[in-house]
């Protein structure tokens, strides 16, 4: 068992060795610029890029001409939302998204608001799901885009994509889906789900960092204003030298995902259950944040009552996880995703996100269960809130003097 144990697969994933192997020759021996039409180095690189494009397309049920390579999901999100808004602004200036989206989506929307667009940020239900009637009610004849993610990075919750796609198609509103967490971990078919734009990220699916893609529908044709102007690469939608090794890596990662997803999901789900049951059977006052059923198999977000998240992370330092506690976020605010579920600030401070994946073993899960249980018990011994709760005092009834 490798130490420290990595259990933060939503933060980033280790690259699959098979992906790295595929990438290596493209740094040195086969180093040409894919746009160089005039020599073998260039052609070779171009061929590899087109193969990668095909691999990505296949995973999404798309055509390879619909795949635009980017530097990652953040860029894809920025490009999709900004690009569509600017292209279709004469048709309407209203967008809809959800409060639990990734910052790349939320911040792009905020910037558009500063430019005179209006954005509706839909609330979510307690299980983290968007309510379809709320979405429908929010749509107007000015709405040009709906952006709802496939799987949430913090709580793993999966939105009802096919339903959203159907509604959007009916209302003639474009549907963008940030699938950075979902790709390779859930079935995604842009045709069946009627998705018009979709963002993917290499490093969330055992591929390299610094690369991603944006699916852009051709039939009916979706247009967008590019973010990166320049040499006209990617059919004018995204200029910049194509980084062959990274694209080869992304392609390979997609191919592996397609081949192994079904089995892997089963395996990871079993491990997650093991983790959850192991903890629940030995600790009280533990809650799961977000729907358990509509959830990515590798994600488990738990709140441990009366124990603060960062102290718990420190106590289990041999295990790499992440927390929704303010102390671990750069802004010192508790997780906005948890708050959106209706989780109190106090409870948000007690949350830990466990992310399991391709290389997680049962042995590791057992170790983590034991470590977590031990640490929580110890921290509860040190917690004045646990003490109060044990003596029957209702914490919520106390008048705290916040400082």
């Amino acid at each position, binding site marked *: 068992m490798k130490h*420290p144990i990595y259990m933060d697969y939503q933060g980033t994933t280790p*690259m699959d060795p098979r992906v790295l192997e595929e990438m290596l020759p493209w740094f*040195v021996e086969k180093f040409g610029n894919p746009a160089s039409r*005039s*020599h073998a180095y260039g052609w070779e690189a171009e061929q590899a890029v087109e193969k990668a494009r095909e691999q990505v397309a296949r995973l999404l049920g798309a055509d390879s001409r619909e795949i635009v390579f980017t530097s990652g999901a953040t860029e894809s999100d920025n490009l999709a939302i900004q690009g569509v808004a600017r292209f279709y602004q004469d048709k309407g200036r209203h967008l809809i998204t959800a409060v639990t989206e990734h910052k*790349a989506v939320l911040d792009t929307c905020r910037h558009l608001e500063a430019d005179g667009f209006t954005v509706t940020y839909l609330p979510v239900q307690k299980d983290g799901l968007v309510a379809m009637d709320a979405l429908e009610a929010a749509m107007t004849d000015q709405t040009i885009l709906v952006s709802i993610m496939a799987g949430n990075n913090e709580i793993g919750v999966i939105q009802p994509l096919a339903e959203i796609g159907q509604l959007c198609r009916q209302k003639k509103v474009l549907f963008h889906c940030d699938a950075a967490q979902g790709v390779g971990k859930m079935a995604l078919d842009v045709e069946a789900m009627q998705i018009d734009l979709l963002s993917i990220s290499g490093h969330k699916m055992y591929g390299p*960092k610094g690369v991603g893609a944006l699916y852009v529908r051709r039939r009916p044709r979706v247009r967008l204003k590019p973010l990166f102007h320049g*040499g006209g690469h990617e059919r004018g939608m995204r200029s910049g*030298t194509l980084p062959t090794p990274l694209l080869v890596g992304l392609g390979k990662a997609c191919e592996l995902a397609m081949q192994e997803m079904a089995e892997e999901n089963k395996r990871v789900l079993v491990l997650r259950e093991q983790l959850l049951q192991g903890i629940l059977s030995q600790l009280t006052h533990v809650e799961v944040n977000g729907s358990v059923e509509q959830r990515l198999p590798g994600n488990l977000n738990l709140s441990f009552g009366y124990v603060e998240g960062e102290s718990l992370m420190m106590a289990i330092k041999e295990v790499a996880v992440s927390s929704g506690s303010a102390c671990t976020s750069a802004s010192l605010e508790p997780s906005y995703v948890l708050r959106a579920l209706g989780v109190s600030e106090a409870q948000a401070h007690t949350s830990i996100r466990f992310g399991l994946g391709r290389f997680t073993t049962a042995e590791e899960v057992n170790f983590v269960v034991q470590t977590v249980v031990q640490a929580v018990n110890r921290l509860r011994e040190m917690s004045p809130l646990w003490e109060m709760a044990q003596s029957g005092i209702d914490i919520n009834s106390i008048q705290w003097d916040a400082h």
Partner: protein
Amino acid sequence: MVYLDHNATSVVRPQVLEGMLPFFSERFGNPASVHGAGRAARQGMDVARRRLAALLEVHESQIIFTSGGTEANVMAVFGCAARHHFSGHLITSAVEHASVLQVCAGMERRGMELTVVGVDADGRVRPEDVCSALRESTRLVSIMHANNETGVMQPVAEIAELCRARVPGIVVHTDAVQSVGKIPLCFEALSVHMLSLSAHKLGGPKGVGALVVDSALLLEPLLVGGGQERGRRSGTENVPAIVGLGLAAELAQHTMAEEQKRLRRLQQQLESQIQNERPDALVMGQSAEQRLPNTTALLVPGIHGETVVMNLDLEGIAISSGSACASGRGQPSHVPLAMGVTAELAASMVRVSMGWNTTSLDVERFVRSFVTVIKRLQP
């Protein structure tokens, strides 16, 4: 194969790739994470930033990592234009890289006024031409440091100083993608506010570059989201590539003095040998001192450039005609046209660009093959 298209891209230097490898495997964490895996990645990134800062003699905080030169250029122009709410005037040159020209055109479509300053027959921007284009409302001037097709170097420092003296608050940007790592560059000495660079032009990997900025400069970010790079460029950092850029920068710094001399010698060898065999060959941009030591753009009137390139490829020699971005499009490049060259002559142009692994033997082989091919293609 003799590869002489380094301005399009270069091989990643072996030490650079070696240095990158651990960051694909053990040190794979997300630098934003607080745990050990994240910290290990962040450390690598910090070291790379320091190395790049050392090459350009700036402070680490002045470096914003991007996905490459194109992004850095777009970020620079867009970032400045957006700060001014897309009002005001922009100046750039006729020989800029497509990424600069296109983003300036984009800003024009959004409401700004644009002046594209021409170049002389040698491909140089004249400071007085920029000066006379200046207006009170000029927000940004973007002039590249060295041209990717001809290697011609622009008097950036002189232009920058003039602009700053004339228009208070003006911002000056330079696309130094082709010069960083090839010739010594000191950010301060250039008097610019922003400088773009790209890793794969100096033996680093593709997919990473940087925009170097003046500490006091405020820019609207192009990519928003997680707030990485101090809010200036969101998106999980491409740690292995950044590490590669840092290593490439360090290597370039150590070998710069020698390498410059070496490339100059090779350039001279190439140009004098060609002129000997083909006195009718024309080198663009005239004197070598005004050009990057590794670049030679030349043409033989009446012989189609693309055809030369393809023939040379058959002989195992890789060069290009016009820039990579534009290659295969069948149109002559905007750079020779801006230099007053006719469309026909422009279509005859080829570019030879050498790099860290180019040898004297490579140059000889090129000259021989070039001369043979020209003879064969002569009507």
